[in-house]
């Protein structure tokens, strides 16, 4: 947590803002986002994301959850407010964050191997080294043997695995996932969720996950941030303490799991009409 102590010494830059708790890796302070045309997407969002946890942003469509994720990624600038990652203010994308895109964002002209290694290629890592790293993560996401295939030769679920491997390959501390499973069919989605839980154990990274699926959020998350309808603000933070030692099916039948799903649904109901 060296970075955090550096942030504390840089404290006066953000007068009035309370200090982040030491274990939080991302701090969101007073974020407002107004799109041209006076569309108020986010209003006064303050949040801490604990290091090593999987946090989900959940809310009705148009609540600004993707906007918040893109602000944290540095792809969008907030209208007011600030995001700190490891104590440093975000002014754009950085090496400590990697993004997984809803539409995969794979280069159709590049093989799986080149796509996965692309983040390292942009950082001028030598070809041999970046291909070795890429091969390792292609194996990690279960795509070994598909290195020389092109994206159009893969199914939707496999393409998103390529997107995930690319994000893992740059060895960022934080993985930002923007509805990664929304373009994937239900069976693949469930398998993917289980793999993600496993990867979380082996990779020890912080995950930030945007979804509109309550079940997915409860199944995967340590912490669920519920956003209200536009302008999005935090309506509730839930920490589902679910025992994940059982099989996926046991978890999905677990009473605690079902109770939390119901609780969130009751919380979100008011936004649906």
């Amino acid at each position, binding site marked *: 947590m060296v970075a955090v102590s550096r942030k504390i010494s840089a404290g006066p830059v953000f007068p009035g803002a309370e200090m982040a708790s030491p274990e939080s890796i991302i701090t969101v302070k007073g974020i407002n986002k107004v799109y041209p045309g006076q569309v108020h997407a986010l209003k006064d969002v303050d949040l801490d994301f604990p290091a090593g946890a999987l946090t989900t942003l959940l809310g009705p469509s148009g609540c600004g959850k993707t906007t918040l994720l893109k602000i944290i990624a540095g792809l969008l600038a907030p209208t007011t407010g600030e995001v700190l990652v490891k104590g440093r203010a975000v002014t754009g994308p950085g090496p400590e964050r990697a993004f997984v*895109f809803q539409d995969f*964002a794979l280069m159709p002209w590049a093989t799986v191997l080149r796509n996965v290694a692309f983040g390292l290629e942009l950082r001028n890592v030598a070809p041999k080294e970046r291909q070795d790293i890429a091969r390792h993560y292609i194996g990690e996401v279960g*795509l070994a043997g598909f290195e020389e295939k092109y994206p159009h030769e893969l*199914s939707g679920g496999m393409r998103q695995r390529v997107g995930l491997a690319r994000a893992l390959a740059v060895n960022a501390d934080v993985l930002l996932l923007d509805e990664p499973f929304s373009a994937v069919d239900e069976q693949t989605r469930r398998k993917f969720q289980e793999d993600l839980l496993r990867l979380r154990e082996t990779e020890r990274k912080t995950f930030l996950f945007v979804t509109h699926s309550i079940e997915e959020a409860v199944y995967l998350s340590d912490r669920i941030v519920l956003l209200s309808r536009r302008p999005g603000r935090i309506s509730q933070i839930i920490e589902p303490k679910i025992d994940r030692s059982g099989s996926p099916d046991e978890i999905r039948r677990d009473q605690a799991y079902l109770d939390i799903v119901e609780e969130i649904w009751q919380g979100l109901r008011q936004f649906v009409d």
Partner: protein
Amino acid sequence: MDARIDDVVAARLAAEPDERARSRRQLLAWRLASIALFCAAWEFAGRIPINLAFPTFLETVEAFGEMLADGTMLRAYFITLQPLVIGVVLSGIIGVSAGVAMGLRKSVEWVGAPVFIVLQAAPVAALIPMVTFIYGIGMTAKVISVCLLALPVIVLNSYKAVANVNPSLLAMCRCFLGNRLQQIVKIILPDASPVIFAGLRLGISAGFIGIILAELLITPTGIGDLITYHRAVANYAHMYASIASIIVFSALTLTLLQWVEVTLFRPEKQR
């Protein structure tokens, strides 16, 4: 990963080369059959005859052979190709650079886009007498005729291609810390290349129109001369042979360009 899904996908991928080779052979057979059908229809129409000035297919082939043997055809192509190649190469280099610059920079777009949009909309054949007025009847005038026709479509396609690059890939490049140069070289140009090449193909076919227009309107030289001369002396088979040869030549050139594009820039399309 679900092992069964993997196996199914792997089996499908392995089976594909065979299937593709078979469908490629079928496609080739159909193409040859359609060419044969066209030639037969031409022969039939010539024998009715639908018009006294319409030769049969075999007469045309014979005329073509004759012109090839006595060297007139090769000489005509040698003359026609000079301004065409110079004009097309110039248009390609200037057109792609200008179009890409317009797509990348708002200021260049502001200056360039109106010029080329007007040029593309204008009936350029009407400008050719003016070109003759300024540049005379030599090589320069013909090169300019080719460029006038080829340039606008190449510029506008390159410009649209760059302006419409997949925004998600641009965001991906930014996210993984690509700088502007990397963004242009590794994302924008490859993503824009299919549309840029479509523009080049259209530009080259417009260049063929330009050179034939110039050879018919400015001074009869090369293939344009062959066409006008044989029409004047009522050698219709020779006239048709000249016209057909330039059409076939133009089609072959465009096919060659497509092959170059796929081989060099789109490896995934070869699968």
